């Protein structure tokens, strides 16, 4: 007899699992197929802390969110079948699945496609040389298999993937020689850019790769500047000796199953996606899509979309009444819309936002070089001066994220009800220097500064996520926001705590006049 389920989910990533959990909570019996050996999709490659608010699991690292999701799935009786490749979606909501050495046929009263996305490629001379890899591949090597992708890497692409993976490459011990993007401005979050810029990684905007060299493997890469028509400007070539070129030029939805099934599709700048409503219902009754396959976004959004589809499917199959569905959708819709606010909201994609919601000029240095210039930083409300130790929050773009306001036990930091507002440091509350805010900031943009500890010195406490961890008494160089040397520095404290979740707090002593410039410690 052919096996039939209430819900067949294809893809055990954040969207698929969330949908299955939501459906199971409403009494459905879902089965989830995933072609990989491990569930969680891309979540287990994400070792950085996520943005958002509590309900979006902000300040939790991606792989921990993955663990939570798996626990929730198993508690709710969601059946997850791994190493199970869905190879076809046919009429009658029938899927064929390759499991082991055979093909099994399953039918669903509903089918949710949550197959995610695959990486885009660009062509340049030598792009097929071994050593040119996708950023996702680099993440898989490092974070799942603990293999260093290379020693010297050039990253192409300044979206969040390019920025986050560049940082992770450095964490894995690779040298990132440059971050290159054909666009004139950085595509991802400024805070992600800033944390690699201050380590000394140069940004080359309006540049792209001319050529990768190496017969058997990459041994070098040449980039050049582009004019307004995206043509190379002669004489601007720069060559780097690298063994790896990492490409992070966007993702394309893996929507082939939906197309095969005959769902109405549309071509968008973000890829070929099914036409679907807010809860992922496609043009074919009973077939749904959630997560990146329906349009590229963050894992946080994918999880909410999955929940919405799960609730909608529960209603479609009579497990959840209309009122309860609407109430649940409204709740989820609100969580989703807060994630889609701010400077990086879908409607702002590709646009230059010149002022923050507070009316402060956007830092063009941040957008073009990866860091806020020293003379710009004091414009932002999180950057204040004080006598004793106090937080300096270098958060300069309106992004949907607020863990810092809950992190301070003294209530020193305020964002308010609008999740995208820039954090404000209240002058009238005393900072106790606990560092909870520093560790809570997913963008690593909060520092504790003390101007004067005597003898002409002050201190800067910064988030530190590299190994080996410097030791107290170690001497080195303080780097500025631009990654250039500012002065000598000495480590005077290193704090680690479960509450910091692997973000260490490194306090360095620098001369008083440098406390507003020194933002990274480099051991000598």
């Amino acid at each position, binding site marked *: 007899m052919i096996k039939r389920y209430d819900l067949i989910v294809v893809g055990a990533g954040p969207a698929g699992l969330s949908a299955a959990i939501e459906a199971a909570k409403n009494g459905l019996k879902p089965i989830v197929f995933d*072609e990989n050996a491990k569930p969680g999709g891309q979540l287990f490659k994400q070792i950085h802390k996520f943005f958002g608010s509590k309900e979006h699991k902000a300040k939790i690292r991606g792989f921990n969110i993955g663990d939570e999701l798996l626990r929730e799935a198993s508690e709710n009786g969601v059946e997850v079948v791994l190493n199970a*490749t*869905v*190879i*076809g*979606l*046919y009429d009658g909501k029938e899927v*064929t699945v*390759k499991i082991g*050495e*055979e*093909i*099994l*046929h399953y039918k669903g009263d509903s089918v949710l496609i949550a197959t995610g996305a*695959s990486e*885009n*490629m*660009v*062509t*340049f*001379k030598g*792009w*097929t040389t071994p050593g040119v890899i996708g950023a996702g591949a680099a993440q898989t090597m490092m974070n799942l298999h603990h293999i260093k992708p290379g020693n010297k890497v050039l990253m192409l692409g300044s979206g969040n993937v390019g920025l986050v993976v560049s940082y992770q490459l450095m964490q894995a011990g690779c040298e990132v020689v440059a971050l290159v993007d054909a666009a004139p401005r950085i595509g991802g979050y400024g805070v992600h850019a800033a944390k690699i810029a201050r380590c000394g990684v140069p940004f080359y905007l309006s540049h792209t790769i001319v050529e990768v060299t190496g017969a058997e493997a990459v041994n070098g890469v040449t980039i050049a500047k582009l004019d307004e028509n995206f043509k190379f400007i002669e004489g601007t070539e720069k060559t780097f000796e690298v063994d790896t070129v990492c490409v992070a030029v966007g993702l*394309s939805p*893996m*929507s*082939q*199953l939906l*197309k*095969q099934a005959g769902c109405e599709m549309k*071509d*968008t*700048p973000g*890829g*070929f996606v099914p036409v679907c409503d807010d809860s992922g219902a496609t043009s074919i009754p009973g077939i749904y899509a959630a997560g990146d396959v329906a349009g590229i976004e963050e894992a946080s959004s994918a999880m909410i979309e999955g929940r919405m589809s799960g609730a909608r499917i529960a209603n479609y199959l009579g497990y959840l009444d209309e009122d309860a569905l609407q109430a649940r959708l409204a709740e989820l819709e609100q969580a989703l819309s807060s994630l889609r606010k701010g400077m990086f909201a879908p409607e702002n994609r590709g646009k230059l936002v010149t002022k923050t919601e507070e009316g402060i000029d956007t830092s063009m240095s941040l957008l073009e070089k990866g860091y806020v210039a020293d003379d710009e930083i004091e414009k932002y409300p999180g950057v204040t001066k004080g006598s004793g130790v106090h937080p300096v929050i270098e958060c300069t773009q309106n992004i949907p994220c607020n863990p810092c306001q809950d992190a301070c036990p003294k209530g020193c930091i305020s964002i308010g009800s609008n999740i995208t507002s820039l954090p404000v440091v209240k002058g009238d509350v005393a900072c106790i220097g606990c560092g909870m805010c520093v560790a809570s900031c997913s963008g690593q943009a909060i520092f504790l500064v003390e101007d004067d500890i005597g003898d002409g010195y002050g201190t800067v406490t910064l988030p530190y996520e590299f190994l080996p961890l410097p030791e107290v008494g170690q001497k080195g160089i303080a780097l500025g926001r631009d990654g250039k040397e500012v002065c000598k520095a000495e480590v005077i404290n290193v704090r680690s705590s479960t509450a910091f979740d692997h973000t260490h707090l490194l306090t360095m002593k620098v001369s008083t006049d440098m406390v507003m410039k020194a933002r990274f410690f480099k051991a000598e």
Partner: protein
Amino acid sequence: MIDIQEKLKEIGPYVEAADDDVLVCRCEEVTKGEIRQAVHAGMFTMEEIRRYLRSGMGLCQGQTCGKLVKGIVARELKVSPLEIEPATSRAPMRPTEMRIMAQDGGGANE
């Protein structure tokens, strides 16, 4: 309705470019120049291009090059890539051995 002859006139003749030898479809080893020439020979759709050159017909089924080919065809035709329909999607979504494909429980009824 598309008037092929008019469109060919509009886009003008094929002109060689410096990067024509860059591989675009790795699976079937199709170059940018071959794709550009095919457009000027009247192959305006992704289906025609892949039937003519095999681009996107290999093991990855165009997952990597589909978007690249679309971009090249669009540029040659002087239209937005959004106007070029992607090629169709066919089962199996992953290349599957014949012996496994044959094991679907259907043999007993034949």
